[in-house]
């Protein structure tokens, strides 16, 4: 069926069809458009029916000629009102004095003119509108929840209007509609619980719904009455009918209604306080039905009441929800503020945390390792989600009920984390430590599992529009229930979830901050106790050296004075005593040096590292030659600000180690550097932009398991007699010197191939 020449539209135009400029009205009423002087400028072609005069005869006529004097007076009185849409439908007498006819009149202003729409006198409504309204009001007010409220509203509207079917239809955030309440008689099929795709009500239709609260289509097969003249005088377009109650209907929409088996329809918009469309009351009749303006305005009132009640239930539910969660919130914060570690206290607070987010899993990402609670994706996946959130610059609070749909890797863990609610605690880079790579954002993530959901659509939503063999577009012809199974989707996040998450963020930031403070004070205490330990070691090692010197001296005296008498066995024991005290002296010296490096102030100056290393090599030349070690410096080393004396110790230690712990026939040690702007050749992540030096050898290498232990004080990996001995103090001292400079020292090594010691010196010049 294709009732109008505009019946065929192409797909691109569908969402842009200029519904408000169709230039015709529904023929169950007539339209007059008049200027400020009250002269008719435009009239609909069907004026004969309710005014008894042809449209052409009306043009230019004053309104006063068309109505009884009292009606004309009423009309003039109404026109004084600034908001004509607030004026109740007028009861006007028209025709000649002998036989006045009563018609209902609706006024509005547009295009600088005033529009009067007239609908044939329908007589007074049978029921007492105020009685009906009072009973409706009571029923709506006593509804327990939104669903019940909508159900009752549908029943009340049906009682008022007599439509075969009245549905209350609420939009989801994607503008798909769900039938939440329905009242119907035996002539109408049920759509209760069904979903209508967003494409059923295109964007420009929604805009019109938000402007015109009520819209009646009295007869889908009625031939529209055209306006005369068709173009608005002085313009090259028809009169704007967007505020017209009689406005004719988009052919696509008419077809949609016909396909649904509907001959008359009425829709009433449900609006939020901010004017956003919340839902619709949709009324259908299998035969043409004219609902008079008075009833319609009652329906409008009812819809406003419904919107208000829906909002107040929403607010009440939210308030209840928030109140309910505040207990969990309090429990959680108490738990987290305890003295236990964050891991421990979070694990203990798992129940209130998950209850708070109505989630089955949560992860707190503060550092490198997420703390996972309940059912969550793997730690690696959690980190991947966090990086994805960062990269896509998601807002501070981000919720999705289908993460896999927007983040493909989440498909592999859709079962546990289809729903994601992410709370960013701190932004990426905040609170980063100099010399370290910028910290990642910190997040609290809530997860909801996949809930395989069956949506019942009113007809196949993907066939909302269908092309016929002539490439003409028709709305879908079947509204039979069409089930769709939706996967990788969780229970949606509610406003209450978001409110709870936002509140939790505040609390968590507080907890994290107070923990950071606590940590800070611990660090200060640790630093102080480290200082005390250094002072202690310094004093002890220094003071112990003196008597130890005495011991060795007396060993010497004993040997000189009584060596003969002691005999060979006695002298051998003396040798051992001497050796042991010498060894103890070395250990004390190492301890002394290490504690000293922690205590002294660095004497920073600009130093040529090239000269410094050459000097070290000169000092070590004896040992290097003995070990047949070549020291290579592939390119001149830079000049830097540092404590040259201390840095000499570092290079001396590393170079002599490289030569000493080496079993190759041809031994070499290479000293080089990487400038701050040069590419990074090493395995470990570069710790910031700085100068990097390395001392590489082709020595025995250090097995992985010892690579950290080697920096422990007095830790040696080889027996005393092998590789020329040593106290095991050199590397800890070297590392400490580098750290005192604000740098880091570490190594990479392959057993049997060689070792590279790497250390950084910060760019800053103090």
């Amino acid at each position, binding site marked *: 069926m294709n009732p109008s020449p505009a019946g065929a539209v192409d797909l691109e135009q569908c969402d842009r069809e200029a519904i408000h400029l169709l230039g015709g009205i529904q023929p169950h009423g007539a339209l007059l458009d008049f200027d400020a002087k009250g002269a008719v400028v435009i009239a609909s072609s069907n004026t004969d029916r309710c005014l008894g005069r042809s449209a052409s005869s009306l043009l230019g006529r004053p309104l006063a000629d068309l109505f009884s004097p009292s009606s004309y007076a009423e009309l003039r009185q109404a026109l004084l009102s600034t908001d004509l849409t607030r004026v109740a439908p007028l009861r006007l007498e028209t025709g000649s004095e002998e036989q006045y006819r009563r018609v209902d009149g609706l006024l509005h202003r547009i295009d600088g003119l005033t529009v009067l729409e007239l609908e044939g006198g329908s007589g007074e409504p049978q029921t007492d509108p105020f009685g009906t309204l009072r009973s409706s009001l009571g029923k709506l007010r006593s509804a327990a929840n939104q669903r019940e409220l909508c159900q009752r509203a549908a029943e009340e509207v049906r009682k008022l209007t007599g439509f075969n079917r009245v549905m209350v239809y609420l939009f989801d955030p994607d503008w798909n509609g769900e039938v939440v309440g329905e009242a119907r008689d035996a002539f109408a099929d049920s759509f209760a619980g069904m979903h209508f795709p967003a494409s059923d009500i295109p964007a420009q239709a929604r805009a019109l719904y938000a402007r015109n609260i009520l819209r009646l289509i009295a007869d889908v097969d009625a031939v529209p009455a055209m306006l005369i003249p068709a173009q608005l005088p002085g313009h090259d377009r028809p009169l704007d009918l967007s505020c017209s109650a009689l406005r004719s209907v988009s052919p696509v929409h008419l077809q949609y209604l016909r396909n649904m088996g509907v001959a008359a329809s009425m829709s009433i918009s449900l609006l939020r306080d901010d004017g956003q469309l919340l839902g619709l009351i949709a009324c259908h009749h299998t035969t043409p039905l004219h609902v008079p303006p008075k009833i319609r305005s009652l329906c409008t009132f009812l819809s406003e009441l419904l919107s208000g009640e829906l909002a107040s239930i929403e607010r009440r539910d939210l308030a209840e929800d928030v109140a309910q969660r505040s207990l969990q919130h309090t429990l959680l914060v108490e738990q987290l503020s305890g003295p236990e570690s964050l891991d421990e206290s979070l694990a203990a607070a798992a129940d209130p945390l998950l209850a708070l987010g109505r989630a089955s899993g949560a992860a707190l990402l503060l550092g490198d390792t997420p703390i996972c609670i309940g059912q969550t994706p793997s730690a690696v996946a959690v980190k991947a989600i966090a990086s994805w959130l960062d990269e896509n610059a998601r807002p501070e609070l981000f919720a999705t009920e289908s993460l896999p749909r927007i983040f493909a890797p989440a498909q592999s863990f859709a079962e546990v984390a289809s729903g994601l609610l992410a709370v960013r605690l701190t932004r990426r880079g905040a609170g980063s430590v100099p010399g370290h790579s910028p910290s990642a954002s910190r997040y609290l993530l809530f997860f909801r599992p996949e809930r395989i959901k069956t949506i019942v659509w009113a007809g196949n939503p993907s066939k909302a529009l269908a092309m016929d063999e002539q490439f003409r577009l028709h709305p879908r012809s079947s509204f039979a229930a069409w089930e769709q199974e939706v996967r990788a989707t969780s229970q949606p996040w509610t406003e209450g979830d978001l409110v709870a998450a936002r509140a939790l963020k505040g609390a968590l930031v507080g907890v994290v901050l107070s923990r950071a403070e606590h940590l800070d004070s611990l660090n200060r205490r640790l630093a102080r106790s480290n200082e005390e330990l250094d002072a202690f070691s310094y004093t002890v090692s220094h003071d112990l*050296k*003196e008597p130890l010197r*005495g011991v*060795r*001296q*007396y060993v*010497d005296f004993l040997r*000189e004075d009584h060596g003969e008498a002691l005999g060979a066995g006695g002298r051998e024991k003396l040798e051992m005593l001497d050796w042991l005290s010498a060894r103890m002296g070395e250990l004390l010296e190492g301890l002394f040096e290490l504690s000293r490096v922690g205590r002294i102030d660095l004497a920073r100056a600009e130093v040529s590292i090239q000269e410094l290393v050459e000097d070290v090599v000169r000092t070590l030349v004896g040992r290097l030659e003995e070990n047949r070690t070549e020291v290579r410096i592939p390119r001149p080393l830079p000049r830097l600000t540092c404590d040259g*004396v201390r840095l000499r110790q570092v290079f001396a230690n590393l170079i002599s180690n490289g030569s000493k712990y080496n079993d190759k026939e041809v031994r070499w040690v290479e000293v080089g550097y990487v400038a701050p702007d040069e590419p990074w050749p090493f395995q470990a992540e570069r710790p910031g932009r700085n100068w990097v030096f390395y001392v590489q050898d082709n020595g025995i290498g250090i097995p992985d398991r010892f690579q950290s232990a080697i920096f422990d004080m007095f830790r040696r990996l080889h027996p005393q007699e092998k590789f020329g001995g040593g106290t095991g103090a050199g590397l800890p001292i070297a590392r400490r010197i580098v750290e005192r400079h604000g740098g880091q020292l570490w190594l990479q090594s392959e057993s049997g191939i060689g070792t590279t010691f790497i250390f950084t010196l910060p760019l800053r010049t103090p």
Partner: protein
Amino acid sequence: MNRPLLLVEDNDADAMSMLRVSNSIPLGAPIHRVKSGEDAIDYLLHRGAYSDPASSPPPLLVLLDIHLPGLNGLEVLETIRSHPEIKTTPVVMFSSSQEQSLVQAAYRDGANSYVQKPTDLSELRKAAEALSQFWLAVAQLPSVERPS
């Protein structure tokens, strides 16, 4: 007048080592040991127990330990350099420490050299020989003008 080497050393073992060395090799001067910085100043200025100048002939050289109880070596050095009648006395700092800050301070305050005490006797012997070779054979020492 047999001018000695004045050894300022509180540590008996160190002092004994030095005396031993001086007994086994000819240093070219006798060693006179005092146990504290205060005693050293008394000796040099002929005060207290050393008020008889005959008992305290001006030393050729002072071997001065740094870590002394009471007045430490650096303070003794400062005192020596501040008294006109003894300020020219050569002073060799003799310390078990090789800490650079001490070495710096010693030279800054007018030490004539800084020697790290060797631990074992043979090393000490070498050091003592070198010292006597330089200070008592090679170097020209200032003459002592008796305060009138």
